[in-house]
């Protein structure tokens, strides 16, 4: 079988397809020099991270002065390994997934120089956690139909409305907010994008419990919350375009990670199969073989997608990856519960808990079965992704829109 590094796309860069000018060895030397000046054992954690950022060793593909050096993204792993080998403190990226995965690229692409300087360092070090205030109870798939209002008041905007499906909101310092600033415009045109201070009296965060019993997400209620115009990202009325940039980053990240063979949901199903010969039947076997093969092909397709991206051929295959990921997670976890036999009827814990992000493992098959149902809803439903593929990839005609007029006149 394959070594799990075989499909690591970073190999491609290192073997010269894109020939970076700074080599991996150069970077290792930089890290060594940095560590010589900042002993991880004696330097304060926050100071260490701030210094690493300032040295351009935070995310090497970011511009100089903003934590990087403008290098290919793939070289980041060299830096991370070197710091890891030195047992240096980390910025706990798992605690700030939205900040690192969505807020940072959005700020980089659409923020002002002042905003980039002000926000990116505390974001990267983890000092400030970010969350995303997009979905609303009445605007899920139809994000552009959202109702949260922001009204200009001097140098500020006053925000009223409700957001939902906000992960990390209870820990976040800032939220990426899309709000309606002009209800007289058609729905896509009256939106504006802000960075909202979550730690103010007008913002209330309530846990939103899901079918697993946990509450990964929150509802966020904004009542006369205030955001300075200086914290607006992009122009007034340009919120839709900025949001799309954020969402593209989200969809590339879902289902787009390099995993070793049997690295995903199939792992525990295959393990259960191997460990319990007494549960094997022809019907279950056929399902397992199909799903194993599909999961492996999906993994290879993911590797191909990353190779395309690395070769500068960004394609729409990211949507395919997410669709396949959602379907396979659901089918595999459904099978896994069945493979568990009598234990499939049990659950581990219904207590309302607040986990740090979604984690399929360390829980029982029933949890995976339930949690996977969210995979075809969160981050763009499978239905919306099919629309996107049909229209943007295949070029099939759009349906006639009935929501073209001013937002305030649309039926809701």
């Amino acid at each position, binding site marked *: 079988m394959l070594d799990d590094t075989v499909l690591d796309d970073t190999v491609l860069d290192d073997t010269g397809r894109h020939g970076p000018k700074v080599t991996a060895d150069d970077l290792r030397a930089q890290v060594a020099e940095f560590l010589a000046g900042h002993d991880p054992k004696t330097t304060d954690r926050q100071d260490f991270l701030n210094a690493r950022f300032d040295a351009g060793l935070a995310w090497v593909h970011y511009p100089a002065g903003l934590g990087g050096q403008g290098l290919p993204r793939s070289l980041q792993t060299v830096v991370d390994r070197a710091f890891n080998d030195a047992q240096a403190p980390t910025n706990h990226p798992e605690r700030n997934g939205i900040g690192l995965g969505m807020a940072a690229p959005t700020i980089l692409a659409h923020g002002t120089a002042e905003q980039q300087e002000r926000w990116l360092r505390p974001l990267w070090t983890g000092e400030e956690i970010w969350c995303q205030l997009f979905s609303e109870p009445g605007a899920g798939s139809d994000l552009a139909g959202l109702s949260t209002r922001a009204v200009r008041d001097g140098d500020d905007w006053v925000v009223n409305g409700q957001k939902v499906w906000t992960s990390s909101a209870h820990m976040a310092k800032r939220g990426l907010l899309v709000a309606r600033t002009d209800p007289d415009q058609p729905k896509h045109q009256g939106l504006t994008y802000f960075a909202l201070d979550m730690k103010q009296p007008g913002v209330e965060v309530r846990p939103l419990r899901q079918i697993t019993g946990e509450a990964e997400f929150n509802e966020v209620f904004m009542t006369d919350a205030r955001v300075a115009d200086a914290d607006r990202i992009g122009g007034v009325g340009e919120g839709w375009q900025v949001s799309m940039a954020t969402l593209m980053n989200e969809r590339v990240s879902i289902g787009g990670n390099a995993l070793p063979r049997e690295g995903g949901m199939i792992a525990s199903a295959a393990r259960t199969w191997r460990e319990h010969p007494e549960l094997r039947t022809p*019907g279950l076997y056929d399902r397992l073989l199909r799903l194993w093969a599909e999961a492996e092909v999906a993994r290879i397709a993911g590797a191909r997608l990353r190779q395309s991206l690395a070769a500068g051929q960004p394609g729409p295959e990211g949507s395919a990856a997410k669709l396949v990921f959602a379907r396979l997670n659901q089918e595999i976890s459904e099978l896994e519960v069945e493979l568990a036999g009598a234990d499939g009827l049990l659950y581990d814990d219904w207590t309302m808990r607040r986990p740090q992000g979604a984690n399929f493992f360390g829980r029982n098959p029933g949890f995976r079965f339930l949690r996977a149902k969210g995979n075809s809803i969160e981050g763009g439903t499978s239905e919306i992704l099919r629309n996107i593929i049909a229209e943007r990839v295949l070029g099939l005609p759009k349906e006639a829109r009935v929501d073209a007029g001013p937002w305030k006149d649309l039926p809701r």
Partner: protein
Amino acid sequence: MTEHATTPGPAASGKDRSPRSADLLYTETETQLRGAVRAVLDDKAPWRDVLARTESAQTYDDKLWRTLAADVGVAGLLIPESLGGAGASYREVGVVAEEIGRAVAPVPFLGSAVLATTALWASGDTTWLPELASGALTAELAIPFAAGTRTRPVPTVRLDAPEAGDGPGDYRLTGVITGLADALPADLLLVPADSVPYGLYAVRVSSPGVGKRPLTSLDMTRQLCEVRLEQAPARRVASGKQAEDSVAAALLAGAGMLACEQFGLAERCLETTVAYVKERRQFARPVGSFQAIKHRLADLWVAVTQCRAAARYAADWLAAGFGPETTLAVALAKAACSDTALKAAQEMIQLHGGIGFTWEHPAHLYLKRAKADSLALGTADAHRASLDVLANLPGPE
């Protein structure tokens, strides 16, 4: 190639229905019974109450069960009128099961009025039937819910040595049985025990030496439990082949009635989803006006239509007795209804969008019950596997 039901089931005794034509519709009596049960469930088991109860100390709704069992009379449907029951058949029981599936109601109907009643009836021991018919007693067959219908589950309980003072009809049982459905609210357990011969024993839950432990279950609307017997006093209900047949009849009838429950559940999921997509608007249109959604719901409706026929066919054949055609009918129904109920619950969540993924919405109650039902009393896969003999489709090698 005609083989008819050979062993009569409850309420089938005496009727000679062969050669018979399955009646796949609902009779007027059945429709009236459905109305009565639905009225009670609508009134006393709205989903918010059902949801709240899943996190309470009492996951079964005893009060609701008393109303259904005694007032509506669903507990005694299979029991002859001479013993205080309604003298009805699995056709009527199937209709009640459909309604219970529609409401994901936390009552031990399947365990007490189907499994235990069928086992007792088939055992020939009528001692408890009047009390069961009146709803005064609730019973359950002590076999794991995950047991299949095809092979006799291996008992985990053994006959123990008698204690001082035990009479000739007194037995003692020791062992642990886990994963029991509907046993939490049961007063009486029918326990299969290995001895020579294999026997079926009745154990009063209130007796010394009987312990129950609730289990954290995937489906908390039918919470499982573990029963621990330590020198528990028991009475023999049947032994040898009769005990085996009684257990087999109970499991078969249970699987058939569970298929009816799954059909009812699937139908309810479809109805709820259709109603939601008619109301819910996105892109200034009802979500249900999007053709992709319409086609998926049409396909689901087709599947539900197929299930209804299969469930009725199983109920009708069970009503005629136990034989190969009945076994085939149950296998077809349980396979079709397991898959469709799960599909319907999954589509309910997906087509409700985010709201269907939240705790404060009934969808997850349906999903969990559908998944648990699909694992119980023979999976779809296991029932299809029985076609090797039932339909003469031998497997590889």
